[in-house]
């Protein structure tokens, strides 16, 4: 089921592309993922070199899962490299 709930059992609405992005992170925890990698993981094709749409989706995803989106702790930005999903994943 494609559902995101907070620890307080509150359902968080999520779009399909944001869900795909989250899945990409959850399947590659504690790894730095570049924009290109993320685009490939979410859309399944090579993206144009300066595609920023991942950044937009990412900021929206942060708004949903971070306690404070301005100071992200779950998805960190790696300078020049991409993004890092910090928590350990349990199945």
């Amino acid at each position, binding site marked *: 089921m494609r559902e995101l709930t*907070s620890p*307080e*059992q*509150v*359902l*968080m*609405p*999520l*779009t399909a592309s944001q869900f795909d992005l989250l899945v990409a992170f959850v399947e590659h925890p504690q790894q730095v993922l570049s924009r290109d990698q993320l685009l490939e993981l979410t859309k399944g094709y090579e993206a144009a070199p300066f595609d920023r749409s991942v950044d*937009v989706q990412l900021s*929206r995803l942060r*708004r*949903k899962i971070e306690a404070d*989106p301005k100071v992200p702790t779950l998805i960190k930005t790696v300078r020049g490299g991409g993004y890092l999903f910090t928590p350990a994943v349990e199945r």
Partner: protein
Amino acid sequence: MRLLPGRLTGRITLILTAGLFSAQAIALWLFIHDRLVTSMKVFGLLFADRVVTVVDVLDETPPAEQAKLLQVLNGPSLQVGILDAPPAKPEREAWHAEEVRQAVRSRLQIELARPVQVQDLDRWAGSPLAEPTSAIPSRQSMVIAIGQPDGRWLIFVTPSNIASLRRSWRIGFWLLTMGLAIWLISIWAARRVTQPIMRFAIAAEQFGQDINAPPLPETGSRELRQSIQAFNQMQERLRQLVNDRTFMIAAISHDLRTVLTRLRLRAEFIEDAEQAQKAIADMDQMQAMLTETLAFARAESMTEAPVRFDLAELLQSLCDDFADANQRVTYDGPTRLTYVGRPTTLHRAFMNLIHNAVTYGSEADVSLALKEKSVQVTIGDRGPGIPAELRAKVFTPFFRLEQSRNRETGGIGLGLAVAQAAIQRHGGNITLTERSEGGMFAVVRLRKQSGC
């Protein structure tokens, strides 16, 4: 001012309290009155005995020493003196003491065999004995006059305590305590009686929002059980009706779609390329209309269960989606707001409202605010607005302000109807108001629940 309380509990409490309290008050009054008269009689007769003794002693005393004796007899508990004439009857005498006066009068007549006059002290004239006044007579005092053999009158004034009910505060205390007890019991009883009715009312309200609400348990008084039974039957019939209708629309839509698919295949064989394209465009339009109609029919009977979800995030996501499609949509409000409702239903409602705003009003300013009793979502646009007389009408299914039925600018007139049905299922409403800076506001008020 309203004389009756609005709530049934209040009314029943009032009736019970008023009835029981007055009954108790009357009983208490009768009891006290009886006790009062009895005690007055006892005191009165005791006093009469003293009067007899004084008269006997005076008869034995030589006339020269009588005045001296009277002076000695005067004290806090007895006033006595000799006057030439009996005191005038006061205009009003305490009616409840008539029995006492009668008893004292007959006792004195039997004992003394002289003219006897017993009456209340005239509260305006005061004591007939100018002096000595060592005892202060009160308005409850009695005046006794005995006709002496020499034609003069021996006057006695009783002390005040014969008739006064000194412990009157006790009655007040008991009345208050009793009233309080009756009031509390009445509230309890009224609550017990009205609770099933309250539950019934709440269930009826729920049913208005959710046709699939479970039937009510038939409990309470016989009348109430009957009402609940009738209500449950009505709900069942309505549910059946709505389900039948939805099923019918769904069946028609489905069958039409099958035909439409066949038609689409046939359109491929139209030789004229332009005509073929137009035919396919018409069919696309038909398909869209069918989909929308089906969605509306389903909205009424949709079985989505309420869950806790983030309403603020739902609105922000919606705004993002519109912004991604290059629409001017902004969001203003908290980033998080937990709400218990049906997210898919509400998503569709807000999507329709925002879609209308950007389509007819070029932009949508969405804001979310937590009010005292409701959660308020406002969608502002910059369009020409809707004339006041048409504002209620736009929520009617298939009503369109644009008469051209132009598919390019919108649907078939179900967007607002779907939105309103969805909002009403959440105990809310939509109002359309003018925006002072130009444009219009669609104000959605959702019922606030505990926990948000």
